[in-house]
């Protein structure tokens, strides 16, 4: 008879319960589709409307995410048959990603108009990348992790090459694409091995398979390490960082602002989910690799940043170093509760601070070309005192001075390393932080210098309402995270409990 009748067919059908868990992502995805259509209707002169519309969509998704914090509850739940987590870690990630995306959209129109890049596709691609990052933050299945990474990467490849007239932007996009696909292949081979050795693609089931006390499986260890290589590329940790300075420098600055923060947040949340939870029983086999990458990132990032003369490249190397500090939290996150909390706190602090620093570069980029070399910052204090003060504040936070967010973030991850009896790791962190002070202060000092008489000063554009608002919000965030520590730490602690919800 019918051969199908004998088959045990899956009858699982997604219901409202599943869709509610995916509501913020669905809102942004809807915004992406609507923006593509709106682009056809809105006259070219009124493209700022598109930014307003995207801002509204992102704000709505942010509101729903905040509601989701209470709706998901402390335990969270798994939706779409174990493919996606609706829990506080995902909501935490969503809020940071949506906030970043929102602030980027606010500063974009001014920048895009000055650079003559104002096209409708920009906002739709930004939304698509945001959806990819949000999906990545909640992904609990290897397939969703892979597809979310590709969704955000492909959108970002295009956005990096968004300035079609500019060779640098195109080159950045090609480099990012070739190296990004290369890294994706590593991630994918690792996933194939993990799937093959455990027999599952759902993280909860993988964790269950791995927690059985069996002899060590070498292919599984290989798979985990290959997956880490692929993800380390996405967070631009050394030695997989070669693309970062070129892409950050070549891409339009507003895109760099977005991707330097949001990609890192999303990728780190999935790293925490994978390594500090799903692969926790193989901790002794992967921890050495993560620690080595963390130390290498701190050393390479900080020392390479010393010699830079371009603010975008300097911030790129600084981002590599920051990835190293966050990896400290990940590396000691299995044995200690402080590790993951510290990493999450650091992520929030990094999001505000780095977004602020890049926002200054975006807002101050003039008509001709992007603000890039240190010389173009000379004398900023005398012409735009508030902007210069904001940038100085962000740089001090990146360097880790109190009372800023960066100080608390560093303090927490180093404390976690000491709690895990890995004092050497904390010392590496402290030592390299001391090095970083030099290049952050160098930029700060250049801003306070008087401009040279003979050299023509860079024409800094007016900050505008949107730019001022973004700088104000990011500076306030950096200060709040540096002063009201308990508040945010409570949030991070709540987000960290139970990263793999059961069905």
């Amino acid at each position, binding site marked *: 008879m019918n051969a199908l009748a004998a088959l045990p067919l899956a009858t699982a059908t997604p219901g409202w319960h599943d869709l509610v868990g995916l509501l913020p992502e669905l809102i942004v995805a809807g915004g992406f589709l609507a923006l593509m259509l709106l682009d056809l209707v809105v006259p070219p002169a009124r493209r700022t409307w598109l930014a307003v519309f995207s801002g509204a969509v992102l704000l709505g998704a942010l509101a729903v995410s905040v509601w989701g914090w209470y709706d998901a509850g402390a335990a969270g739940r798994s939706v779409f048959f174990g493919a996606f987590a609706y829990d506080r870690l995902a909501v935490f990630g969503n809020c940071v990603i949506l906030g970043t995306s929102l602030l980027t959209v606010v500063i974009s129109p001014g920048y895009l108009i000055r650079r003559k890049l104002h096209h409708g596709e920009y906002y739709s691609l930004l939304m698509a990348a945001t959806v990819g990052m949000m999906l990545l933050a909640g992904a609990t299945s290897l397939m969703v992790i892979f597809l979310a990474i590709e969704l955000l990467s492909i959108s970002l490849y295009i956005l990096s090459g968004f300035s079609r007239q500019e*060779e640098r932007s195109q080159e950045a996009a090609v480099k990012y694409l070739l190296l990004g696909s290369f890294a994706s292949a590593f991630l994918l081979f690792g996933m194939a091995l993990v799937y093959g050795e455990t027999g599952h693609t759902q993280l909860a089931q993988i964790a269950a398979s791995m927690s059985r006390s069996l002899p060590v499986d070498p292919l599984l260890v290989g798979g985990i390490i290959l997956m880490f290589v692929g993800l380390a590329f996405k967070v631009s940790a050394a030695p997989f960082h070669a693309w970062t300075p070129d892409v950050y420098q070549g891409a339009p600055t507003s895109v760099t602002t977005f991707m330097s923060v949001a990609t890192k947040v999303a990728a780190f949340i999935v790293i925490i989910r994978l390594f500090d939870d799903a692969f926790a029983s193989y901790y002794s086999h992967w921890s050495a690799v993560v620690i080595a990458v963390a130390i290498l990132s701190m050393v390479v990032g900080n020392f390479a940043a010393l010699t830079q003369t371009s603010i975008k490249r300097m911030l790129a190397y600084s981002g590599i170093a920051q990835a190293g500090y966050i990896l400290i939290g990940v590396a000691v996150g299995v044995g200690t509760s402080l590790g993951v909390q510290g990493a999450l706190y650091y992520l929030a602090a990094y999001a505000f601070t780095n977004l602020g620093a890049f926002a200054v570069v975006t807002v101050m980029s003039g008509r001709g070309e992007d603000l890039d070399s240190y010389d173009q910052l000379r004398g900023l204090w005398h012409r735009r005192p508030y902007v210069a003060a904001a940038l100085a504040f962000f740089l001090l936070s990146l360097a880790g001075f109190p009372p800023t967010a960066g100080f608390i973030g560093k303090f927490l991850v180093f404390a976690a390393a000491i709690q895990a009896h890995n004092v050497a790791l904390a010392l590496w962190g402290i030592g390299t932080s001391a090095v970083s002070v030099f290049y952050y202060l160098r930029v700060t000092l250049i801003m306070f210098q008087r401009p040279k008489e003979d050299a023509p000063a860079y024409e800094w554009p007016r900050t505008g309402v949107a730019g001022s608002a973004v700088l104000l919000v990011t500076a306030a965030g950096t200060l709040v995270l540096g002063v009201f520590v308990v508040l945010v730490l409570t949030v991070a602690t709540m987000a960290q409990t139970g990263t793999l919800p059961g069905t």
Partner: protein
Amino acid sequence: MNVLLAVILILAAISALGVVFSSKTIYSALSLVLTVALLAAVFLVLNAQFLFVVQLIVYAGAVMVLFVFIIALLDPTAEDRPRLFDPRLILGVLAVAGLCTAVFIAARNDVTYDTACTTQAVTCMHGYTVGSLAATGDLSADPFHTFGFPENAVDRAGNVQTLANQIFHTYVLPFEITSLLLLVAAVGAVYLTRRVAVGPRRDPQAEERWRDELVEGGE
């Protein structure tokens, strides 16, 4: 069947060498087409009929045609000598050999590795619970004794209906993400290749030279 599979695998490996080491771009592309087609044959032998067809249509068909088309458009006669005797190459070859040996040894050990298999209801593969069969309880055939799908499960896994059933039920979220992904790729391709008033690096002289060479070559 074993011999057939072995022959296809060896041929695929040889044609993959052609992708990396041929000096002409177009030969690399054609070798890749061959590799892709041979892998499709492997999928058929492994009872993955759906993927066999998808691999042929999407990969060997669409993707590789796109590649060949772009090669013809950009630089049909490009020669790129792989850097032989480069220390990087020698190091790389050693790495390839070492890694492959390691994986092979690990995989062999895996097969003979079932120690902790105790319960009857759970099929064990080097100790781990095996996939969805354990969940559905369809264990009439032990995958240990028959590699490839057991007789009664042949309809299950390679079968288009079963796969479709899985994709539209359990894996509906990943499937929907792919739709978004393809949309982004389409938007991006249109944006990137749309003509702009001033091209980024369009050297009219070089273009003319290229046209001349093309005409001369055709004569």
